[in-house]
């Protein structure tokens, strides 16, 4: 661990993002639209996941020039993605002085055995997870924030729901267990005992947990919030829709008023066409980004 104080400060930044929407943007202009609409942070990248899916080939960290231009355009925190295990891309992003690194399955993995040792960095990391064990492995590596993997670039919420429910069920299953049982559960989860014990004691993850991967409507965002997410990432869902500014504003409001169906009804009205969705049964195993990483 770099030092505990730095890690705490990084978890603290994630706490400030709660109740907010982090939006994928590919240009300074989109970044300004996102900020104006009420994004609590932007994810700077060359292509949104839907385009990465369409184009195929190897997806890498974005050109620093794009990231710098987006950083210059907004006052809210800026995040950017690196490939799983590509610690040099992470070093480059840290050198650019952005606020958060997403070690992301949306990009083509650089290492099939190891994720980045995030304790070697000063900059905070967010990582995807499909269940409690995966979340705790990433936290053990130093992640300051977790998000569901979902299935990025599909505008289909089903995988994000599955992953968030799996994390919640994992946490609930630890309730009331004794030490010997927790040791056994730690083995099953493939996660360090100390973290498993902490989650059992506190009844929640030790870091902020956002929903990501397939959110396309205000109702999707509110669904994830009601299921217990601390906030949401919207990747392709905004700038692949017919009216990005309006949809972005509506999703921001939905995350604040997720428990108020009357407001959700009002803001869901007349948003234009959402991003066209993908039926997950149509994806081959190698087209499923969530399976990347371990």
């Amino acid at each position, binding site marked *: 661990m770099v030092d505990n*104080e730095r890690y*705490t*400060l*990084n978890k*603290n*930044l994630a*706490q*400030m*993002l*709660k*109740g*907010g929407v982090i939006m994928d943007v590919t240009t300074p202009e989109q970044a300004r639209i996102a*900020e*104006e*609409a*009420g*994004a*609590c*942070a932007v994810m700077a990248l060359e292509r949104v996941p839907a385009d990465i899916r369409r184009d195929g080939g190897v997806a890498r960290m974005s050109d620093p020039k794009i990231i710098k231009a987006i950083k210059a355009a907004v*006052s*809210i*925190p*800026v995040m950017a993605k690196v490939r799983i295990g590509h610690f040099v891309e992470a070093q480059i992003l*840290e050198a650019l*002085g*952005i*606020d*958060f690194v997403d070690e992301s399955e949306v990009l083509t993995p650089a290492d099939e055995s190891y994720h980045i040792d995030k304790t070697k960095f*000063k*900059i*905070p990391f967010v990582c995807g997870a499909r269940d409690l064990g995966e979340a705790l492995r990433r936290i053990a590596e130093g992640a300051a924030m977790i998000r569901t993997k979902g299935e990025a670039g599909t505008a289909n919420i089903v995988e994000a729901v599955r992953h968030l429910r799996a994390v919640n069920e994992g946490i609930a299953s630890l309730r009331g267990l004794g030490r010997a049982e927790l040791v056994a559960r730690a083995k099953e989860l493939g996660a360090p005992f100390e973290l498993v014990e902490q989650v059992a004691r506190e009844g929640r993850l030790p870091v902020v947990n956002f929903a990501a991967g397939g959110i396309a409507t205000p109702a999707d965002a509110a669904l994830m919030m009601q299921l217990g997410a601390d906030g949401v990432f919207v990747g392709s869902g905004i700038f692949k829709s017919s009216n990005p500014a309006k949809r972005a*504003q509506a999703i*921001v*409001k939905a*995350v*604040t*008023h997720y428990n*108020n169906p009357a407001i959700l009804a009002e803001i869901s009205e007349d948003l234009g066409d959402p991003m066209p969705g993908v039926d997950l049964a149509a994806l081959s195993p190698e087209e499923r980004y969530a399976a990347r990483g371990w």
Partner: protein
Amino acid sequence: MGPIGVLALQGAFREHRASLERLGVPVREVRLPEDLRGLSGLILPGGESTVMGRLLRDFGLSEPLRRLAAEGLPIWGTCAGMILLAKRIIGEDTVHLGLMDIAVRRNAYGGQLDSFRTELNVPGVSPAPLPLVFIRAPYAEEAGPRVRVLATLKGKIIAAEEGNLLATAFHPELTDDLSFHRYFLDKIK
């Protein structure tokens, strides 16, 4: 005593709620104008001021809040909340609530790599040095004659009050120390 409101539009409102609950105070999350009824105080939490400012306007909270402030409702803004309170944001035309006669600079220390923790004596708030957590924090560069500066760090104003208004650039709700929450509650009694 009516409940203390915590503005719950975005950001770290649960942390303030937890600090208040540790002090045995009733708390209400505020998202809509009707949530403001009968409050004895209000906390504007940390988060993103651009997000909260937009939602304050969109859901009709700005005007009732200004009215309550004028009537003397104690309001405390931490970090983004300090920006919401300020009458001026340096380098921007935006003003959110515009209640407190301070000129603040956003992200004054830089990005997340410049976030830090320190300790400082804040006389009148606590006899012992207080842990102060700054996350992409602002500070105030100027304060009007009616503003009382409570703490400075390297010459910049990081805590101040003006009548019923209190502003801190740092986050007491992220530490175990309840001194600033107690100080705010004392303004109510």
